[in-house]
């Protein structure tokens, strides 16, 4: 993304921050949902796009961030809680990254899916055997408007980071890895380190989104925090949008979030079936995502 595009995007985010002054109810709730998935899907694509590692660990990092708030929310000032959530997300992703990023293909997919379940079972074990209670209450004085602002700020930071990354040596290394990992190793790229670094960056954002969202639900248990459907939703949104460019995932997030909203409102009894059909259509009709389609159309127009 060029500096001008980045500047425009940040300006647009700043304008969106005015939304809570226009509506504090439904539209704010919808905007929070879109912003949440925008950060998650963009963070997902930042790692999975160039490396082509399909990760289903989104729920694991989201959940660990949310749980950090549930545990520390009332004990520490809010910025510190966010900091701890980010650090925990980073540490966990480094551990996981060094252990698993040597895996590739389907093994990595399966492992990351298992990771969310593993963390969930560990948290459950801890709650049952140590704290002897399950389900935590999040009574933090954070308004819905503040949740939106934090998500927009996260998204802005993510865009800036992504823009910098695309121009950096790390970003270049990752693109080479995505094209051919063996070649990357032969030209002297430390592939493991590059992948782990990016995995950690992406995971920190996911953990922060979980932390920011937790006060919205008042009550958290492991099943809510580590809900695997978060991983799948993020994946399908990023695939629909396209992972090749920084704003690509957004092209999937906005239409799908709106579509889910319309489907729940108009067809509450057929939601799951219709979503399944949409997923099939996305994979069959738009293998390169919306951004890929746009790029193809543009090339067509030039030719």
């Amino acid at each position: 993304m060029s500096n001008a595009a980045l500047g425009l995007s940040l300006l647009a985010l700043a304008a969106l921050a005015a939304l809570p002054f226009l509506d504090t109810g439904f539209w704010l709730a919808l905007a929070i949902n879109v912003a949440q998935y925008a950060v998650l899907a963009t963070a997902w694509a930042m790692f999975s796009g160039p490396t082509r590692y399909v990760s289903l660990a989104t729920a694991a990092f989201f959940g660990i961030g949310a749980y950090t708030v549930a545990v520390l929310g009332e004990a520490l000032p809010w910025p510190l809680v966010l900091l701890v959530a980010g650090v925990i997300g980073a540490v966990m992703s480094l551990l996981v990254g060094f252990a698993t990023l040597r895996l590739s293909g389907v093994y990595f997919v399966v492992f990351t899916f298992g990771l969310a379940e593993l963390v969930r079972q560990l948290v459950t074990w801890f709650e049952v055997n140590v704290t002897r209670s399950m389900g935590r209450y999040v009574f933090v004085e954070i308004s819905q408007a503040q949740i939106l602002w934090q998500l927009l700020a996260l998204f802005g930071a993510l865009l800036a980071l992504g823009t910098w990354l695309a121009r950096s040596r790390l970003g270049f290394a990752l693109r080479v890895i995505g094209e051919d990992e063996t070649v990357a190793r032969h030209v002297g790229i430390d592939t493991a380190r590059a992948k782990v670094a990016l995995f950690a960056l992406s995971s920190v954002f996911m953990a922060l989104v979980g932390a920011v969202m937790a006060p919205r639900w008042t009550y958290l248990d492991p099943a809510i925090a580590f809900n695997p459907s978060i991983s799948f939703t993020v994946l399908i949104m990023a695939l629909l949008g396209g992972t090749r460019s920084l704003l690509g995932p957004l092209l999937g997030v906005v239409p799908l979030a709106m579509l889910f909203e319309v489907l729940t409102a108009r067809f509450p009894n057929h939601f799951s079936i219709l979503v399944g059909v949409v997923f099939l259509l996305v994979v069959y009709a738009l293998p390169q995502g919306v951004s890929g389609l746009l790029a193809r159309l543009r090339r067509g127009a030039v030719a």
Partner: protein
Amino acid sequence: MNSTITRRGALGAAAAALAAPAVRAQGAPSAVRIGYAISKTGPNAGGAAITTIPNYEMWVKEVNAAGGLRLGQARVPIQVTEYDDRSVSEDTVRAAERLVNQDRVDFVLPPWGTALNLAVAPILNRAGYPHLASTAVTDRAPELGRRWTNSFWMLGTGSGAGAGLVEVLAPLKQQGRIGDTVALVSVADGFGIELANGMRPAFQRAGFRLTYDRSYPVGTQDMAPILAEAARGNPEVFVACSYPPDTLAITEQARVSGFNPKVFYTGVGTAFPLYKQRFGAATEGVMGVGGVDASSQRFQDYLRRHVASAGREPDRWASAITFASLEMLQQAIERVGRIDRAAVIRELQTGSFDTVIGPVKLQNNLLTDLWQVGQWQGGEFYGLMPLNKQGAKPAILPKPAWPAA
């Protein structure tokens, strides 16, 4: 929400008011709009389909058959807006926002279960809607009632239900009718843990000994090893703080292996009609959470209407309480006589209501007078405790042997 009055909207409203028939000229709306988001899919769907949805549907049907809610002189029918929350907190939050701010319903009925009730509580509180949480059971209910004064917690606390069992058993031990050994198993999840937490200290105070105390993860399929270990010490009392699938599995396993302690208690699901269908005469003497006063005419009448409306019986724990919460809402609205949510909340806080579970008056936004322990006796799940509550039955002890299958 303040910039939405447009000129066209105001004109439209004025035109509608002019065109309205004479009844509505007295200030009554053409319909009372009631909205709810309920789990039609996802892990909560089973519980919602047993306890919540049939009661919501039956209440709306009955009220509308009578012409609607009485607002002053007029009868105003109920118009329902419903959504599927898919058992997801985030979806529940958005559905509640949509009901309150987009659909602008007059009243919102709560979702099923503790987690989702807590998810909507701050929204309903901010918007000033009454919140009758009839399927949420949490030890923090007293605190929640104080925190959100528009919220009413109708299903007691887990530890209250746990301690209630010991209140039933302690006198029986003193009379020498049961010994002091207890085997306790509990599911590692919210209510199972709270129930067991309520029991342990109460058992200790009453002089019982725990010969076995173990928890198992949610979704455990095979109960045979746990039950075999629990039965090893030949305990007088067996307690399972279980969830519906485990309740069925534990009962089945105990029956098959002939484990028949003097007291056999299982958790959530014991009061379900499904339990009676599955085990028939073998339910005799099984204790569990919940209970009803089956001798009351009001309950029998409710039972009959529920079967006619939903095609199946209600459960013997939260079903009648859910319906009672709707009757309370109806009576509060009718006493106020107009759509005035603040006044309805005040009425719910202070009023007395006549319901299928008997007269109800909430204490600090809590329903405190409810059945904590029940027992299957002759095909009905009677309330045993509180011991002095109207309709309380003495416990059958010892539990009869499992009949041959």
